[in-house]
């Protein structure tokens, strides 16, 4: 049955003024900053950074001339002892040495100071060596920040799905691609800030350690250029990690599932498969993360692929994974994940 309903004439529908420009971006930025998880993470990061500085100040020291003299004496003694063994080896090569291999090769070259870590290794508290630690620290900070960024990226969109607040948001901003794009943009901005903060944190920490317990050795000429390049790649890695977390969680719509997949990936695929089939390493995310951020990339040895050519008889195949190649690989994976997550978000029924 049907019947008509009579109501007083309604006022005509007014064209609404558009929402202020960037209102969605502002709202998402506010939400990003106000997220308890982000705030807790930032607090833990600052505490960890302060603790690392304090530990560094206690770990490194300012050795005296006497400390250096004692360390040099210890290094000389070890080198001398090794040389004595070596001479004995040369005079009387081992009976099980391969036939035709010269005694020099069997007994090895003379031991050098560098082979045993330098004289600093024999000081009770070695000074902080900025030249040696600069890029290493930048890589370490990039790695830690990337792990955090992955979790931030995953929870940023995962919390939306778990609370289904993204559905409520669509009552207000129904253009799904715009909503997803805004969330993505805010995440990239946040991850960039995180990556830069991590690298600035390392510079400040290194500066404090260098001033308090650093060596007097001058820095190499290309030190700052090389360090800044490593740090820039570190920031890029942090952003890519956040995007990977965001993309993966957009697809599975659950933070726990995304983190579980990431854990299984690292344990099963990266570690086990990476060791069992080293020749697959150039296609693994962890290897490419190292390839992107390490100064000059990484040189891989394919122990599962031996080179039997005349000049490399029995040697494993070497593979150079450069910064650019790794960056492109990680970017392509991140784009694919986010693209798939976005397409699914645009097409899915929302419940």
């Amino acid at each position, binding site marked *: *049955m*049907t*019947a*008509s*309903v*009579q*109501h*007083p*004439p*309604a*006022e*005509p*529908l007014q064209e*609404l*003024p*558009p*929402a*202020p420009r960037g*209102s*969605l971006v*502002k*709202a998402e930025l*506010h*939400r990003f900053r*106000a*997220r*308890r998880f982000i705030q807790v993470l930032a607090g833990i990061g600052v505490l960890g950074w302060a603790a690392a500085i304090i530990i560094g100040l206690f770990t490194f020291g300012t050795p005296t001339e006497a400390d250096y003299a004692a360390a040099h004496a210890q290094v000389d003694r070890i080198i001398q002892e090794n040389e004595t063994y070596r001479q004995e080896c040369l005079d009387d090569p081992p009976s099980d040495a391969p036939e035709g291999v010269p005694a020099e090769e069997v007994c090895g070259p003379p031991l050098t100071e560098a082979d045993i870590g330098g004289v600093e290794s024999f000081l009770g508290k070695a000074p902080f060596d900025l030249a040696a630690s600069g890029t290493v620290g930048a890589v370490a900070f990039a790695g830690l920040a990337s792990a955090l960024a992955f979790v931030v990226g995953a929870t940023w969109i995962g*919390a939306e799905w778990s*609370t*289904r*607040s993204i*559905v*409520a*948001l*669509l*009552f*207000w*901003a*129904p*253009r799904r691609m715009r909503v997803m794009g805004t969330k993505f943009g805010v995440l990239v901005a946040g991850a960039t800030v995180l990556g830069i903060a991590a690298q600035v944190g390392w510079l400040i920490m290194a500066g404090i350690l260098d001033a308090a317990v650093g060596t007097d050795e001058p820095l190499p000429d290309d030190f700052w250029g090389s360090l800044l390049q490593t740090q820039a790649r570190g920031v890029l890695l942090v952003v890519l990690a956040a995007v990977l977390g965001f993309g993966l969680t957009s697809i599975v719509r659950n933070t726990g599932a995304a983190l579980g997949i990431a854990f299984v990936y690292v344990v099963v695929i990266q570690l086990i498969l990476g060791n069992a089939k080293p020749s697959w390493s150039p296609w693994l995310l962890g290897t490419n993360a190292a390839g992107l951020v390490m100064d000059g990339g990484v040189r891989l040895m394919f122990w599962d692929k031996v080179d039997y050519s005349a000049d490399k008889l029995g040697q494993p195949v070497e593979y150079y994974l450069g910064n650019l190649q790794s960056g492109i690989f990680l970017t392509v994976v991140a784009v694919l994940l986010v693209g798939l997550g976005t397409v699914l978000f645009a*097409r899915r*029924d*929302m*419940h």
Partner: protein
Amino acid sequence: MPAVVMEAVTKTYRGRRGRPPQKALDELDLLVENGGVHGFLGPNGSGKTTSIRVLLGLVSADAGTARLFDRPVPDALPEVIGHVGALVETPLFFPNFSGRRNLELLAEVAGVPRTRVDECLDIVDLRDRAGDRFKGYSLGMKQRLGIAAALLKHPRLLILDEPSNGLDPAGIRDVRELIRRLGRDGHTTVLLSSHLLAEIEQVADSVTILTRGRRVANGPVREVLAGRSTHDVVIRVSDRESAGAVLQAAGFGLSPFDDVRGPALAVHNVQAPGEVTRLLARHGHYLEELTPVHADLETAFLAITGEPA
């Protein structure tokens, strides 16, 4: 220009994990004129929430058309969404943010002034607890915050899906009063989806009843009820047995019963109550009471859908 029009909208959800596909909407028609409160009534799983999700662009229809204020949705939804406030099932907010913070974030998205947040918190009587975290709210407070969010845009169309869920009796009364008030303000059209028949009966001007994804009745509530009239009357007389014999002899069906007010007689299939009055008066029985038995919405609903709400 109607607020809502749906024509022959069909939606089938894909079957998952071996379950067969489920047809949620089966060529559903829905017409909600501007102004007033329109009830949307149907048994669980009849497609009420799916219909609302189609209107809000959350679910894509397989066939048919849907329009809000004469704009096709979902294509033109961005043009009209500023006129539409909605509370669909459970309110969806960030649990660690306060109620006020949640509303402020939504207000910021649409460029609604912050003063409106406090106005809406006042409307739902939640201002005192607005600073508390959402996860600490009772079910009723969450529901009230959801209604406040739906009101933020000062909407022309307010879609409320089971707004009384979780509310205590006082809260239910307040929400119903609010809905009535909004329906009468000349600005707002309320589409009220509810499984509470009494709620629809109390506050709605018109109603659409659906079952298994199809519309089975619609129109003003009174007309829907009138279409299901019982033609029964209840009478009270001083001598029930004698009066009953007179009516029985005239061919009326009778059901005597007792209630707190004493003995009474239900007379069935009375086309004109005056017949009963005249007949009894001719035999010296004078009525103390004659009350037509109106069908309530529950009776009508059960008769129309053939299943419980």
